[in-house]
């Protein structure tokens, strides 16, 4: 079995939610908020919310889409916002650009809805990230499998979802190490194709472990 030169270091993450000073009561105000809020706020309401609500696999994608659906009552716009897939983005700027474009185009096309009051206001918050090492590393596929199996939800989320922004690549920590550390590019690609929107973190992890097991049986 291959030994990686650079070990995979398992870490975990914890987020503090900081309350911002912007809020929105209409779609037009949501657009203004999206244009001016911090990057940490866009991250909080898209990437981070996907981690903290991972058990919802039907129709929940990000906080903006959920607010537009449940409070602003605009199903069509909610669908468009929910369709934005964080895996397509390696920078918050690009994600913010698309969020603003979708909401802006909608407000332009339906100006009478843009100023309509929502049931509840949307409050912009931010995530403050604190990472800590778990003191566990892997050099082989067996050790790697064992580490993943023992990760908390937050640790799994950190390596599998939020890592895309850190790496600035359309991949995740696991796939990155499998390809670069162990040279297992096919396995790395398969892992990267696991759908984080239709799977929970638990079912994503199960799929990942099954893929690793298949590879272990092969070698």
């Amino acid at each position: 079995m291959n030994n990686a030169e650079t070990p995979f270091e398992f870490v975990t993450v914890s987020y503090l939610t900081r309350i911002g000073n912007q809020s929105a009561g209409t779609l037009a105000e949501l657009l203004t908020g999206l244009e001016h809020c911090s990057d940490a706020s866009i991250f909080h309401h898209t990437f981070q919310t996907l981690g903290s609500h991972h058990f919802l696999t039907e129709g929940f994608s990000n906080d903006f889409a959920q607010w537009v659906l449940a409070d602003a009552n605009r199903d069509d716009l909610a669908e468009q916002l929910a369709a934005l897939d964080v895996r397509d983005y390696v920078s918050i700027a690009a994600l913010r650009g698309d969020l603003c474009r979708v909401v802006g185009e909608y407000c332009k096309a339906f100006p009478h809805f843009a100023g309509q009051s929502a049931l509840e206001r949307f409050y912009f918050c931010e995530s403050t990230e604190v990472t800590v090492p778990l003191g566990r590393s892997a050099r082989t596929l067996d050790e790697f499998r064992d580490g993943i199996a023992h990760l908390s939800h937050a640790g799994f989320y950190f390596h599998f979802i939020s890592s895309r922004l850190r790496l600035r690549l359309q991949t995740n920590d696991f796939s990155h190490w499998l390809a670069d550390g162990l040279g297992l590019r096919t396995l790395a690609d398969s892992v990267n194709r696991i759908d984080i929107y239709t799977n929970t973190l638990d079912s994503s992890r199960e799929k990942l472990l099954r893929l690793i097991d298949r590879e272990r049986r092969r070698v």
Partner: protein
Amino acid sequence: MSEILTLNRIPLQDYAELLGEGEIEELRALAKPLRGRSMEMINSTAVGGGVAEILTRLLPLAEELELAMQWNVMTGGEDFFEVTKSFHNALHGAPYHASQRDFDIFLAYNERNRTKLPLDAEFVVIHDPQPAALIEARAPGSNHWVWRCHIDLSHPHRAVWDFLEKFVSRYDGAMFSSPEFSKQLPIPQYLFYPAIDPLSEKNQELDPEFIAEVLARYQIDPQRTILTQISRFDRLKDPVGVIRAYRIVKRYFDCQLVLAGGSASDDPEGAIVLKEVLREANNDPDIKVLELPAWAPLEVNALQRASTIVIQKSLREGFGLTVSEALWKKKPVVASAVGGIPVQIIHKHTGMLSHSVEGTAYQIRFLLSHPEIAAKLGERGHQHVKENFLITQKLKRYLTLFLSMARGT
């Protein structure tokens, strides 16, 4: 003199069995850099009330992680607690005539406590308005002080808030249960949720025989639909509105309504509301109005577990932990979209939100017509609580805050 509280040990392994080893390993990893650093929690009551209930469970957990966390309780006379009760109500928006005498009493007791409490920990967490002025005792140096506000500050009495704000703005951060409750302050504000303990008497698994015994005691038929609201008899919990919603539901479904809350005997306003509730119930044998003892966690647990649907039709709410309690038990919940409830109930995902008597009745009818959807909501609600509103998550948030402050992030 301050009270240093000693609490029963709760083995971390008991939580690992419920939450998984990975979650406990994560807590240990977060706690490790904080070992040997002092933390102090200060509030104004050792027993009774949500804060004391949470701290009672939080401290032993911290101890399991080998953290030096202390809990001290400030002391005060009757005059102090009368003033702070008026402040509490005023901060919730109740009418209040501001008097210099009240402010003086508040300051005098805070000053007295400053000399008695240690207040020298590296991380000091002050809970609620009563001890807020202890910040005056902060020694110059690098220790961190944060203020945890458990109450709804969305419509505070101006004079009381202006008075408190002078102290609050001197902390390093403030924590609120909902973004709606936050204020314009020059310090960072964080979202901190209250939490339930899955191993406490109120939330632990119960023997079905005990549940049956509780139902029999209160003459509730386990074979028929049971709608339940657990809340003290308070107009802000809208028990009369719950009865009106039940009456609409009753036109379509055979059901019973349980309204259970603490005894109103020592609460003059509660006694008046209880009378209003009984009048509205009009001797309907299917409406059970239960005055429970002040501390009846096992009965509350049993009633929640026996319910078909749990209701929380509050008009205003700080957080409404009864919602998390019901969700933890995988119950479908219909609740008002007020205060911290929408954080717990993500509409159509972890429960149903409503805005009126008619809306509440409609959502109950919908769930009774679609038990498979009700079951799914209960299942997801349980996951949501597991992820966000358990005592272990609360400790994790505190550790994250302390680490973040220590690292200057």
